[in-house]
């Protein structure tokens, strides 16, 4: 739109073309009732005193509105960041020894990151988060579709490539689940907010196991429910094609379903974990030692088969957790209890 046409639109017409422009006026503290006025006439109708009170300069109103509109257009879902692949180029370990690795990841890939405490799992995730260019302690570099990320885009505030979930993230907004999801959907400029909210909510409840309501305040959700809501939200609403998960083991969510959900949304998932059941969910696992990737293990068919059986044990342990929660005694024969997990031949080792 040229310089003059925007100013000569009536506010009504401006809002028809750019419905979100309503926020421009309300956020600046300039709610506009006289919508038949042109933008120019509205701006001139504001007294110097009022503008001064609001911390605004008259000559900046129009450039601000223009910048606001172009910002919102950029953020519209059409211009979602997309990518074909991400390449992780090795750097060096904590002793400066080169990390000879070039790892290409594609949408739908799930990679576990394993290693002892302090080995550098979180460092690796942080390198991906900031799309390191040899400028972090590890010296790693990340390429997006084969190239270094566009510096101007990145410096300008485009950080939507990577979403993160970790154990110490909490909800701090004092709103209900419904309001929370609506706020997020609005910020993503989603057209049908109610549909989006309903979809994420039902997914979250499915993952959480224990039901909660749309009217529940987000700060009142249990740890597991919060984590479930965060995962469902990242999967369905976040624009980011890369998702980093740092230790969500004890969260009490259905982890298998959670990962399936992220994979279905074509996310690239990196998952730092100490939990064998989670680690085996990845198609590959990166073994970190002394700050460097020491090995890459493809999950084998026999590991996958084992995972199925280990999951049965996991469900048994979930039963035990339930017993404890419900205040019951753990009073049973272990062999009987585990009978459906183990073929008879293996039961010997329990004695």
């Amino acid at each position: 739109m040229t310089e003059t046409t925007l100013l000569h639109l009536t506010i009504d017409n401006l809002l028809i073309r750019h419905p979100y422009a309503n926020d421009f006026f309300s956020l600046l503290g300039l709610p506009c009732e006289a919508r038949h006025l042109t933008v120019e006439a509205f701006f001139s109708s504001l007294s110097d005193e009022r503008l001064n009170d609001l911390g605004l300069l008259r000559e900046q109103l129009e450039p601000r509105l223009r910048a606001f509109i172009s910002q919102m257009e950029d953020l519209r879902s059409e211009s979602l960041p997309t990518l074909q692949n991400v390449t992780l180029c090795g750097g060096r370990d904590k002793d400066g020894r080169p990390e000879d690795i070039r790892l290409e990841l594609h949408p739908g890939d799930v990679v576990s990151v394993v290693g002892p405490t302090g080995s550098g799992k979180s460092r690796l995730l942080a390198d991906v988060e900031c799309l390191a260019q040899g400028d972090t302690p590890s010296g790693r570099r990340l390429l997006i579709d084969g190239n270094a990320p566009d510096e101007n885009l990145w410096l300008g505030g485009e950080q939507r490539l990577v979403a993160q979930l970790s154990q110490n993230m909490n909800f701090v907004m004092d709103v209900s689940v419904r309001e929370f999801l609506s706020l997020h959907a609005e910020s993503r400029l989603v057209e049908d907010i109610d549909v989006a909210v309903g979809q994420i909510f039902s997914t979250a409840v499915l993952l959480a196991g224990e039901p909660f309501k749309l009217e529940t305040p987000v700060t009142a959700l249990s740890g597991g429910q919060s984590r479930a809501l965060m995962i469902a939200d990242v999967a369905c609403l976040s624009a980011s094609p890369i998702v980093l998960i740092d230790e969500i083991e004890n969260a009490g969510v259905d982890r298998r379903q959670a990962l399936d959900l992220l994979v279905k949304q074509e996310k690239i998932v990196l998952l730092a974990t100490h939990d064998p059941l989670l680690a085996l969910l990845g198609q590959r696992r990166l073994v970190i030692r002394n700050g460097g990737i020491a090995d890459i293990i493809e999950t084998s068919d026999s590991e996958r088969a084992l995972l199925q059986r280990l999951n049965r044990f996991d469900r048994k342990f979930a039963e035990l957790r339930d017993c404890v929660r419900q205040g019951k005694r753990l009073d049973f024969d272990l062999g009987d209890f585990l009978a459906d997990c183990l073929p008879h031949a293996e039961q010997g080792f329990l004695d």
Partner: protein
Amino acid sequence: MKLVTVAGPPSCGKTSVILRLTETLSKVGSRLGVIKFDCLSSEDEHRYNRAGIPVKLGLAGGLCPDHFFVANIEEGVRWGQRQGFDLLVCESAGLCNRCSPHIRGVLAVCVVDNLSGVHTPAKIGPMLKTADVVVITKGDVVSQAEREVFAFRIKQVNPRAAVVPMNGLTGQGSLMLERHLRTAPETPDLEGVRLRFSMPAALCSYCLGETRIGPDCQIGNIKTMDFS
């Protein structure tokens, strides 16, 4: 010497951000100094001292800290020049939402934190609205959705600023802030330079120390609410 104004609400992470930034900058051999403007007292002086960063502390006492800032910054820049800094950072607590220390032609950074809530960006005045770079801290403790909503709200109230998420504890993100600082213009002195936004004189009898309540005691710039 480059000058940069760093402003933001109390405890949003300004000092942490500056300290993490200096760790990045000292690696490339940059000499950096800090002037800290505050109201009554400040621990920050010790934090900078401990990190080996030359620092001057200015306490505004009963004045608006931003008014105090304008009255002293020119001399501050001369101090920085004498010390031979490559970069002089002015940290000021945005205690007065109406005033702002940002100066035309000087890189303006506003720090806000994710914990302050999604309605905060709309409430902060020119300090945020006229900034070139907005640093968002404390993303490590809130959900992805809250980070996204918060950044969105910032972009709405200041669509022209670059938004830089940064962790004040680990320094994650400080490299991006450093790259913005590299583009900052040189500020040899502040002669003839203007503020980005006027600071209201707003002098009423209470600004001048009046403590009694009542219309007889009010002189000057008085604004009344409508309670009818």
